[in-house]
């Protein structure tokens, strides 16, 4: 590393630090022992986390987030995996269109999607149901699962499936006992990412949630505008720790995938 590049490298490290700083700072605040939103001086305390888990509005919202995330992950996994199989294993009219259409939700602002979904959900009677938020979130889970699984299917040795068919397995048997085990790690990565996205999503939840099904971000939102209690910092801490744990899981799946595909 030469000296002339030093300013540039410093800038890059500063940008990386700036990206992490707000999150780390919010986490740090959550350990304050006092009533005020100040960094903990001296002793750290878990009292705000205890308060968080003692209040039903917060624990309920955490449960709701997990329910919505799980539903959304299941929907994304089914739709994303089947779309990836269709695109990699078959040639058909509309294949290219399907590939682009699956990615399209990522390029529409969240707010427009939420705005368009609210009247539709009211019309089909899903408004106020966990399923409405979960379905909305799967619009983003779908492309993530699709990308991960499509990559795994393309990397897979096509002779494996041919061998199974040659040995007399039908299409369903081949898929469930040969293809599925191979793409499982990729589904794990895609599914966990879909869960994380749903778990942390605010805008769609803001439009689609009724008070009975409020998710964690939806409950944090008004508190951010009107209160300055360290309780919100603890709620943020819970969200960040969950996200990082899930990301760690995704990373484990990702590395195991590299080992099994062996390429």
């Amino acid at each position: 590393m030469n000296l002339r590049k030093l300013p540039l490298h410093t800038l890059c490290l500063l940008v990386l630090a700036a990206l992490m700083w707000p999150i780390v700072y919010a986490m740090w605040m959550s350990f304050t022992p006092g009533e005020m939103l100040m960094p903990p001086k001296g002793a750290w305390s878990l009292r705000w986390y205890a308060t968080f888990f003692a209040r039903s509005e917060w624990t309920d919202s955490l449960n709701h987030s997990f329910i919505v995330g799980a539903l959304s992950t299941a929907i994304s996994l089914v739709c994303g995996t089947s779309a990836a199989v269709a695109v990699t294993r078959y040639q058909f009219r509309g294949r290219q269109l399907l590939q682009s259409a699956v990615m399209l939700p990522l390029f529409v602002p969240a707010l427009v999607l939420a705005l368009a979904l609210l009247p539709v959900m009211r019309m089909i009677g899903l408004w106020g149901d966990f399923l409405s938020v979960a379905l909305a979130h799967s619009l983003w889970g779908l492309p993530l699962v699709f990308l991960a699984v499509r990559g795994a299917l393309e990397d897979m040795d096509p002779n494996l499936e041919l061998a199974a068919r040659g040995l007399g397995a039908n299409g369903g048997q081949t898929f469930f006992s040969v293809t599925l085990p191979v793409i499982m790690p990729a589904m794990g990565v895609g599914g966990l990412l879909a869960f994380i996205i749903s778990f942390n999503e605010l805008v769609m939840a803001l439009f689609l949630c009724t008070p009975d099904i409020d998710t964690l971000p939806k409950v944090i939102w008004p508190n951010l505008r009107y209160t300055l209690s360290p309780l919100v910092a603890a709620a943020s801490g819970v969200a960040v720790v969950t996200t990082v744990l899930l990301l760690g899981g995704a990373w484990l799946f990702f590395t195991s995938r590299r080992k099994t595909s062996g390429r």
Partner: protein
Amino acid sequence: MKKSSRAWCWAAPSVLLLVSLLLWPMIYLVRLSLNEGGSKSGFGIGGSFYKPGTWTLEVYRTLATEHYFWQVTWFTVWLGFFVAAMCVLLGYPVAHYLWQLPRRWKPLALACVIIPKLSNLLVTIYGLKMILGDHGPVNETLMTLGIIKEPLALQHSVTGVVIGKTLLVLPYTILLIWAGLERLDRTLISAARGLGATGWQTFSRVTLPLSLPALAAGALISLIWALGAFISPYLLGSPEQITLAVDVQRQMFENLHWPRAAGEGVAMLLTLALIAGAGALLRPKSHVLPR
């Protein structure tokens, strides 16, 4: 079963999801914007959000002639372009830096980009609110150093909105440009160095031209996300910093004029389509090697 029909069986779940949750709602959004606004009684209680079955261009007529709407639109577009420019200017060097990092450090550096991208955006904004506040570390440090006397208005100002939005979009920009650089053939770099090019020459005549498509894609996507800015203007801005997205939410939940909210949503989509279309036309061709 025919092969093509089996393909459609596999495609069916995703097609169903996309048609019912993307295509239909978008068509319905346009339809909604052509309805008459509902009658307002009290705080919308008892009144309706729109009159079903009516057809009118009233919403678009109002929007086209309203000063407020154009002001909001211009601010949105200005903010979008400004934030996208910041993201590219900061994102390209960082992506390039990540690309050159030794294998050992890459996961750590990538984690610094991915964790903020996947974490709750509200946590980032919450942290920023504290950092940029009047008694936050930035103002305190600057005052201790004697550079400023009064705390800077970093919050509730356009500065805050730009900083917040840039931090929210930047991870996408970095990841996209970095992915483009990773696909680049590294032997070309060694070849250029082997033929006697200096580091700067290698960058400006090999790396940069080859990464232009990724750079363009990164810029376009940053712009698309920046135009949808909602959370940062809402929480870090003052009432003057209203973007289209913020106004849509207000029309929907405070003013309860759903056709107008829908009309503004359509306006947002049209702006995006226009910019994406222009971007696609101006996109630099890939595989262009410098002479």
